[in-house]
């Protein structure tokens, strides 16, 4: 294979995953949290594709496509929730959405 070895791709994937995690943990707007979640998923996808190339087996790519479909569905539902919350005039702040507290 030309270009960097597989390991470098994995490093990039790790970076993406960590960055996404950071976003989920640090941001207060649910919209941004969803976006960060997308980044994490993409990082995982990159890892999957990388290993597919490494093994020479397209299963990884199939998996990545499935992940993409699921991510899309999840974004749909998540955005629907956010819109419903906004319609109820509730603050879009993850810290304020704590009705399920014990």
């Amino acid at each position: 294979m030309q270009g960097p070895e597989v390991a470098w791709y994995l490093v990039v994937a790790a970076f993406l995953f960590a960055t996404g995690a950071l976003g989920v943990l640090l941001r207060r707007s649910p919209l941004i949290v969803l976006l960060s979640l997308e980044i994490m998923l993409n990082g995982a996808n990159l890892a999957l594709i990388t290993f597919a190339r490494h093994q020479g087996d397209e299963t990884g790519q199939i998996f990545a496509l499935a992940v993409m479909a699921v991510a899309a569905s999840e974004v749909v539902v998540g955005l629907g929730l956010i819109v419903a919350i906004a319609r109820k005039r509730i603050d879009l702040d993850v810290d304020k959405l704590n009705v399920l507290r014990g």
Partner: protein
Amino acid sequence: MITAAWICLVAPLAATLAITLLGQSLSRRAAGYLATASVLGSFAAAVVVFAKLWGESPDSRSHASTVWEWLNAGSFHVGLRILVDPLSVFMMLIVSGVGFLIVAYSIGYMDGDDEERRYFAYMALFVFSMLLLVQAGNLVILLAGWGLVGLSSYLLIGFWHDRPSAVAAAKKAFIMNAIGDATMALAIFILIQHRQTLNFPDAFAVGPGHGWLVNLVALGLLGGAVAKSAQIPLQTWLPDAMEGPTPVSALIHAATMVTAGVYLIVRTHPVFEQAPRVLELAAGLGAATLLMAGLIALVQTDIKRVIAYSTMSQIGYMFLGAGLGAYGNAMFHLMTHAFFKALLFLAAGIVIHALADEQDIRKLAGVGGALPWTRRAFLIGSLALVGIPPFAGFFSKDSIIASALGRGWYGGILFAVALAGTFLTGVYAFRLYFVVFRGEPSAFVREHVTEHEHSGEGPFSMTAPVAVLAVLSVIGGWIQFAPVWHPVSDWLDPVAPPIATPSNTEEALASLFALLLGLSGIGVAWMLYGARRWSVPRYALGQRVLEHKFYFDEAYDIALYRPSVALAVGLKRWFEDPVIGGSIKEFATGMRDLALGTRRIQTGLVRTYVLAIAASLVVLMVVFVAVR
């Protein structure tokens, strides 16, 4: 004969069950008749057994019958065993005979009471329990009967259960009896371990060389006897037991139950004979009790209490006799005492019933004019009590006193005490007679008696038993006149051979002294209360001590009751509340606090949960890598 013995035992039980199960469908009168009939049936069966036994030769007069094997542990067998022998038949006759008369009397006495059925059920239960006790063939059945009579006594003392004093008296009687039950049980345990059997008489051959063991057993049995028979130191329950109806006092606390202790000693005399010190202790306790009770009876103002202390005193005589080894004499006195004591109680009951349940002798004064036949009956009973010939007590009491003579210095003391007792008996018995039945009627009497003059002294059911008992108190003693003819002692000889047989001179001496002292006692009572020539001496201290019954109740209160209560309160404060309650509460509070603490993890914030997931992910990755 065995069948008859079983019928004698079971008939009152059947009556109890019938009255209990039939409940309201049985009229109150019918319950009374049923109970009376059952006890009469018992008496008839007892007579049959007696007749059959009499027909046999003296050596073979012992039959046992075991119906059900209860415990079978290796070599130890215990069953429902009854024993028919001279001693048990003697007691069966007394219990069922006198019991029949008293239950019949109750029909009239308790007439009109709302809970008459319950009363007769309890009375039948009592007769059954007492018969079980005397017919028992082993110590376990005897203990069963022992406990049941204690129960019946409790139920009957507290019969009028809306009276707090009655309830308290019932509890007191039961608890004090329980002390005796406990010591008896301990004695039985020792016997089980040692003899592997509890059947009479095999259980008693403990054998020499076990000195302290036998003493323990004898002490345990004596403890039970002392509790049941209200001797010192467990005597305080008997006067309070007078809270029950008068027939109850007559049957249970005069004629039968309280004499069970004497029966026990006579029945288990082989054990006592192997522990002579304990036997001497029994005699000493009897003597002390008879003296103390006689003194207290001098100042009592409740008619039933005087008679109760008299009972205590006379049982002291029986204990004295049994402790001295004069078993036949003690049992004979038991029989005559049953007659005249029941007579005294039932006659007192007629007076109480006629005077609206009043029992204070100052208020009852002078009622003899209105109730002449009752007066005569009471006179007969009192004469028998003091032991004036030809009445019953003379023949039985003097033999006991005579038995004390052959025993060295200890016997001498007992002899003197017994004689002092006869003097006191004369004084208190005739104090009661003169105050209640002689003299001018008090205001109270005049008020109440005019209503009853037209209906006779009482219903037939009440006067007839009194009449029968009066006759028995006259002729009952004629069955044995110690020096000359003694069928009672001969009858009981195979079972309980006496170890003290006073000689004729000793008998005569004792009789003479006793008679003289008795008569002088009567004379003193006449002077004080009859003719009122002397005034009653007033010694403040003595009066107070006697009125407080020698401060036994107060002593027990301080020595036993208050420390127990303090202990209980202290335990509650220092142990139960902090440790147990505290630990339970602490446990609960701890769990609650734990839950509250754990609850704070549920912040409701998504970010917290995600952080938790991320952190666990970090840790798990390390673990994963390290493990692989």
